[in-house]
């Protein structure tokens, strides 16, 4: 069957099998490998993306279900003028170590802050309670999201010059082989 999906603002039309999972559609068909998979039972949450503005576990959504809808992934998180405050927060507060759970968590964090610009520590922990991290013990993830909330509240007064992160990063020019 054919599906047409808006992903991060670009429309894609592809021929797929109905059984294709959304996470595989994004990773294998569209080469958007920032969204990951990590379990078989919808527990780990490294696959979280937005479907029509709502965070979902893309391993438990069919690509067919996204037909005619919008999807947003980590690749669409950065703003035209730089990192999203959530991304800045994770950088500032050492909210990632191996980086595998990070995209899904940032998508959840972005959604949380959109609806609740001043979340308490408890509210943050509840919001991310469906997503696992094996590296950080959650401490700095919570701090990162709180940092992002405060940064947004301070109306993007960039407290320092972080141009270095708009430069090409290691891996950009590397062939994936």
């Amino acid at each position: 069957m054919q599906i047409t999906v808006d992903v991060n603002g670009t429309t894609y039309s592809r021929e797929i099998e109905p059984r294709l999972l959304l996470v595989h559609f994004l990773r294998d068909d569209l080469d958007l490998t920032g969204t990951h998979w990590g379990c078989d039972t919808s527990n780990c949450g490294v696959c979280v993306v937005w479907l029509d503005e709502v965070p979902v576990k893309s391993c438990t959504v069919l690509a067919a279900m996204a037909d005619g809808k919008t999807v947003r992934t980590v690749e669409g998180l950065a703003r035209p003028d730089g990192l999203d405050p959530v991304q800045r927060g994770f950088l500032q507060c050492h909210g990632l170590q191996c980086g595998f759970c990070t995209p899904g968590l940032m998508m959840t964090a972005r959604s949380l802050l959109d609806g609740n610009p001043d979340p308490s520590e408890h509210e943050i922990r509840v919001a991310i309670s469906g997503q696992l991290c094996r590296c950080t013990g959650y401490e700095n993830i919570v701090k990162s999201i709180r940092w992002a909330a405060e940064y947004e509240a301070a109306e993007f007064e960039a407290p320092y010059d972080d141009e270095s992160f708009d430069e090409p990063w290691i891996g950009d020019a590397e062939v994936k082989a």
Partner: protein
Amino acid sequence: MTAPENAAETPMGYGRMLRKEDARFLHGRGNFVDDIKLPGMLHGAVLRSPYAHAKILSVDAFAAEAHPKVLAVITGETLAERGLAWMPTLSHDIQAVLATDKVRFQGQEVAFVIAEDRYAARDALELINVDYEPLPPVVDAKLALAPGAPLIRDDLEGRRDNHIFDWETGDKAKTDAVFERADVVVRQDMLYPRVHPAPLETCGTVADMDPVTGKLTMWTTTQAPHAHRTIYAMVAKLPEHKIRIVAPDLGGGFGNKVGVYPGYLCAVVGSIITGKPVKWMEDRSENLMSTSFARDYHMHGEIASTKDGKILALRVKVLADHGAFNGTAQPTKFPAGFFGVFTGSYDLEAAHCEVTGVYTNKAPGGVAYACSFRITEAVYLVERMVDCLAHELGVDTAELRMRNLLTSEQFPYTCATGWEYDSGDYPRALQVALDMAGYDKLRAEQAEKRENGELMGIGISFFTEAVGAGPRKHMDILGLGMADGAELRVHPTGKAVLRLSCMTQGQGHQTTFAQIVAEELGISPDDIDVVQGDTDQTPFGLGTYGSRSTPVSGAATAVVARKVRDKAKIVASAMLEVSPDDLEWEKGRWFVKGDPEQGRTIVEIALAAHSNLELPEGVEGHLDASCVYNPPNLTYPFGAYICVVDVDKDTGRVKVRRFVAVDDCGVRINPMIVEGQVHGGLADGVGMALMEGMAFDEDGNHLGGSFMDYLLPTSMECPSWELGLTVTPSPHHPIGAKGVGESATVGSPPAVVNAVLDALKPFDVRHADMPLTPAAVWCAIQGSPLRTDLAIT
């Protein structure tokens, strides 16, 4: 709201520094093995045994091979023809790559399908017909050596039982004598259950045998790329210079990604057979059921003390469940890893332990999940025994520890089993933790709560770790000595590239090792590239596990940077036309003693080293150096942990209210990263103490094969960690640093368990095994603690 704090500027050396590697992960542009796509790439899938123990009567792959999208099916027979059906393990046993005669654990690899895409590969698995004749399995390690127990390893000639090894350490006669005369002896059985590292990225590889050049390239989830390369050379008999192993970004490792798994080898064979790259990524159930588990030590501990609470000796017997193949990944001479440091953080007169390893019908492994080669087991044993002793004597657990901890004057300290602890100030660390926790106030609160029938517990764990394997004379993996190389090149314009044999899985190496070079040379960490993971581009070494990166590769980095600095001194002396002896160093430049204006920066020296500057006789140009660092000893980080829990006595639910962790890992290169490492390990402790565990039923069915059953802690179970530190440099490490990656995983489980059992003191519960699920706690309160390794039948 005020604008939040932002990072300080990039330090020229040690200090809090934001990570250089973060950019790609924040943009979703990490390069993990499953992200890799090569032209013509095929997909592999493994067919696994549903039985824990069964003869294989036949394997019929005809229907699978006929599937239009399947290119090949490999069976044990296919591999046997190539002499590859069995491969050596890291413990000098052999392991089946694909089963031929029998299957010996549920989930064991039986066949490998290669198809055009992963969905077709999955479909094809169902088309393979395997005829099994089930056999009675050995599931209970305690029955593995019972007379008449089913023989698991009948593939090994002359084998008559499931016994693998006996090992002992310490002085038995001396220890027995001390126990004989001791006022107080306390005995306790305890299980460290089978658990799993479960990194969020599972294991896998893309194997690409180029049929034209004969070069095999593998992008693999490996923490030890060079070891893998050498192993493939030995096992698959491929020329080693034609093998390239690349570990790209790894989504966590924790010891799960050290060994060579059958799926990797099958992917290699698949690539050889098809002439195309073959990707094999296991799914989560495969990861949990077949890759290296951790622990599974049935321990019997005995502690002897005076009636005044002076601990005299420890005596331990361990039954080690190794699964169906002995595949533990630890240095050759240590079949029980570094369990010998069960002597702990106390001054013992004597100690002795015996470890018996047995086969069972379960997956192979045992050394994994941040265990520092069985130190998790050792620390759990000693810290639980100390609490049991405190319970017996009616002494406060902090008080008992304070009375017995090694003091700083006693270092370097050789413990009763021969390990030389390098440095430490233990009482100070414990005091810092007690002060941070507000210990006396907590005990007062507990007393009050006990009056009201409320259960609150305070648990302490003081651990000594031993990391940084290790001196090559004593420590090798499969005969490869554990000394690691480092290469540093400074380019003409003063930027540098550091090539290392270790392999980060999230520990921040791209940043911290650049910081070491910065500290030594005064080149900004932003100007230093750290290269790891590609065996074609990096020097030989044994990789990253056992918290060895900072102790070994960190030392190598400092040594190689100092070599560059020494070389720079000579170049500077030629530039300044003075003798090298007239020069003095301040970070970033050599200058003339007494005339500081006269100096040359490292950047100027780099250019000059590549220029037409005449250099003294015997001195080569450029500004490069390499070394191989053979550590003289392990390093001994330590810590004092205090956990506070509240227990619901009717439901058994445990809430971890607070966790205070004071760590000493010597000099801290980047405190931000050290703290992150500790945070992660503390969560492991909550997980293992309260919810993680792999049980089996009597048929050998694995009951923890998914994240619905193998439970990992979430943000809700973890408190906000309270960290403290002391700094006791390692006297033998070039920069005084020790490892830290596994400290919290080692130290935290006993703190949580001790806390829960402390909470249950009103019910006189002496011990209950992990995981202390609500059911386990409730059963302990009722007076019948659960056995947690086998299913309730």
